[in-house]
C-alpha cells in the first residue's frame, strides 16, 4: 500500500480526473498560486493549461454562476472557494440558482458542479477567515454535502462528486492536509451517502464530522484508559446522510455524542441529534451531547482560540460525563 498526505491525495485526484475526462475543468481563486490552496493544485496548470485550469478574479458570485453555466453546457467544473468565508458572496448563485435549477425547471436541467469549499482557520485569522459552513449548505435543498476526513475518502469522494449529476459541495478542512493515510494509486470512488465506523465500540457512539474525526479517534484512545469503549462514526457525507448507520450504532450503545467543527445553533450536530431522538429515542440511555463551536464568531487572539475550537479534550469530557463520571 501507498501512503499519501491528504493534500497529495487531492492533488493526485485532480491530475487523474483531468487526465481521464476532458470535460473536467478546475476554476477559482488560487488554482495557479504557489500557496493559496496549499499544494493541492501543484502541476495542474503546467499539465493542462489555462483553458482548463482557470485562476480567476476576486468575483465569487459571478464566477460561481459562470461555473454553473458551464456545467449546464456540458463541462464538469470543479469550482474552488479557497475559504468558505468567501462563499457568502456566492450564496445567491449557490442557493437560489444552483440548488434550485433542477427542481424549479421541472427536472429538465441539472447542474453537475463540484463546489470545493475550504475551511482554513486558526492562527489568529479571526472571524472572516475561519468559518466552517457545512451546516449552511446542508440546510439548502438541492445540494449534496461531502465532508472527507482522511486521504482515502478525500480521493474517493472527489471522484464521486465529479461523477455526480448534481451540485455537490465538497468541504475540505486544511487541518487535515498533513494527515497521512493509505491511498490506492488507481481511481476509485467512495459512495456518496455511505458513512463508516472508523472504530468499533459498545458503550458510546461518537459521530464526528470532517476534521473532528481525527479528534474523536484521539479521544477514543484516551477513553480506553478511562475504561470507556467508544464507537466512532464518520458519516463522510452530510447530505445524503447515512442515518441507518448512526441509528444502528445508537441502538447498540444507547449513548450519543456528536462532534462538529461548526456552530452549535441549527448546526449539523443539532440535526443529527434530532434525527436520533425522532427515530431511536427508545434506545437512548442518556441525553445526547453536542461538541461544537460556541455561537460566537472566531476570535483572533490565540488565548481565545484555544478555548474556541473544541478538540479531543471536549469529546473525552462529554463522553465521561455521559457515563456519569467527572473529567477535569
Amino acid at each position, binding site marked *: 500500500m501507498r501512503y499519501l498526505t491528504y493534500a497529495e491525495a487531492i492533488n493526485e485526484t485532480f491530475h487523474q480526473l483531468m487526465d481521464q475526462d476532458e470535460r473536467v475543468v478546475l476554476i477559482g481563486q488560487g488554482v495557479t498560486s504557489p500557496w493559496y490552496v496549499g499544494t493541492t493544485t501543484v502541476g495542474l496548470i503546467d499539465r493542462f493549461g489555462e483553458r482548463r485550469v482557470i485562476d480567476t478574479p476576486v*468575483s465569487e458570485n459571478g464566477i460561481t454562476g459562470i461555473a454553473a453555466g458551464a456545467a449546464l453546457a456540458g463541462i464538469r467544473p470543479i469550482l474552488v472557494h479557497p475559504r468558505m468565508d468567501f462563499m457568502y458572496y456566492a450564496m445567491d448563485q449557490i442557493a437560489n440558482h444552483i440548488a434550485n435549477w433542477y427542481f424549479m425547471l421541472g427536472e429538465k436541467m441539472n447542474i453537475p458542479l463540484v463546489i470545493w469549499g475550504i475551511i482554513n482557520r486558526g492562527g489568529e485569522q479571526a472571524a472572516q477567515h475561519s468559518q466552517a459552513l457545512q451546516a449552511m449548505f446542508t440546510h439548502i435543498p438541492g445540494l449534496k454535502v461531502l465532508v472527507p476526513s482522511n486521504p482515502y475518502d478525500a480521493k474517493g469522494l472527489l471522484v464521486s462528486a465529479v461523477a455526480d449529476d448534481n451540485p455537490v459541495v465538497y468541504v475540505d478542512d486544511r487541518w487535515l492536509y498533513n494527515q497521512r493515510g493509505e491511498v490506492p494509486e488507481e481511481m476509485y470512488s467512495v459512495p456518496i451517502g455511505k458513512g463508516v465506523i472508523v472504530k468499533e465500540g459498545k458503550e458510546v457512539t461518537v459521530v464526528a464530522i470532517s476534521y473532528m474525526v481525527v479528534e474523536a479517534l484521539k479521544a477514543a484512545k484516551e477513553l480506553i484508559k478511562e475504561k470507556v469503549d467508544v464507537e466512532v462514526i464518520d458519516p463522510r457525507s452530510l447530505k445524503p446522510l447515512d442515518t441507518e448507520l448512526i441509528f444502528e450504532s445508537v441502538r447498540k450503545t444507547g449513548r450519543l455524542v456528536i462532534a462538529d467543527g461548526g456552530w452549535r445553533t441549527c448546526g449539523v450536530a443539532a440535526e443529527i441529534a434530532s434525527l436520533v431522538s425522532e427515530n431511536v429515542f427508545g434506545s437512548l440511555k442518556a441525553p445526547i451531547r453536542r461538541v461544537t463551536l460556541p455561537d460566537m464568531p472566531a476570535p483572533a*487572539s490565540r*488565548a481565545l482560540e484555544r478555548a474556541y475550537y473544541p478538540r479531543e479534550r471536549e469529546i473525552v469530557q462529554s463522553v465521561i460525563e455521559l457515563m456519569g463520571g467527572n473529567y477535569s
Partner: protein
Amino acid sequence: MQEYLIPFDKELVKDIQEETLINMYTMMARIRKFEERVGDLVSEGKIRTPCHLYIGQEAVAVGVCFALDKDDCVFSTHRSHGHYIAKGGDIKKLMAEIYCKATGCSKGKGGSMHITAPEVGFLGSSAIVGGSIPLAVGVSLASSIQDNGRIAVAFFGDGAICEGVFYESLNFAALKKLPVIFVCENNFYSTHMPISKIQADTEVYKRAEVFKIPGIRIDGNNVVKVFTETKKAVESAELGKGPTLIECLTYRWRGHVGPSWDLDKPIRPKEEVMWWVNNCPIKRFEAFLMKEGILSDLEKEKIYKEVEREIEEAVKFAEESPYPEVGGGGNGVFK
C-alpha cells in the same frame, strides 16, 4: 513605469503650509517604521495574526487622511494599518491588537485585519475583498440624511474592482450624489495575480465614467498630489456633487501577506520591485522637502528618533499587556 510618477514641484505645494508638509512626512515615516517593526516581529515569531504590510503605499493613506476632518470617516481592508495610523488612531492600541492582546483596539478579537478607532473616524477594516465599500456609502447616506457634512472614504485595492459590490456601491452613491470618496489603491497585484490577468481593462478610474462621476488616476506615491486631489473630491462632495473615484497608482514592496519580499516566488520580477523601491514615496518627498529647505538633516533625524521611540513604546505596551480572558466580560456577541 516612469510615466506613473508625477514629480514634486513648488506649484504643487503652493497652498500648503510647511508645517503640514512636515506633518505628512512624519506620518509617512511613522507608518513605514511601524510596518517594518511589525514585519520584524512576525519574523521573530512574536506576532502570529496574518499581517498585510503597507510598506510602499504610505503616501495614499497620508495624502487622503490629511485632506479629511477628524469627523470624516474611513473604512479599510485587510491591509489597513496605514489607514488607521494616518487617520490618527492610537498606535499602542494598534500594536496591542496585532499582538492580539486584551488592550488592543479590538480587544484582541480582530487581529491585524480587523481594527478600529471610531474616536478618530476609523470605522473599521474588513478582510472580505470589497466588503467595506458599501459601508462607506452607507455612512455617506447617513450624512445626507442628517445633513452634517461628514465625508466618508472607502479604501480598497485593485482586486476589489472585480467584486460586484463595488459597482453596486458606485451606482448608488452616484445616483444619490452621496458625499463619499472611493480610493482605489492600485498596487498592480491581487494576491498572486497581476492586474492584467484579472481585469479586462486595467484603468480602474474609467469605471467612474459609466456612473457619470469624476474618476481620476494619479501618482499614489506623491503624497501632495494625493492630498490635493482628495481635497478637490471633498469640496465636490461638500457642494453636493456626489462621489469621486480616485485611483492611486502605488506598489506594495513586500509579498501579499507577511514580511517576505516573495522574490523567490514566480510572481513579481525583481527589477520591478526594485524600481518601486528606488522610487520610494518617502524618499521622493524627502528629497523635495530638503531641496526646498523645508526639512533639514537634523529635523529628519529628530523625526525618526521620535517615531521610533513611539513605536518602541507601543511594542512594550503590547508585550506587557495581558491576553484577553476567555469569557471575560461576557462573550461579546451582542451589545
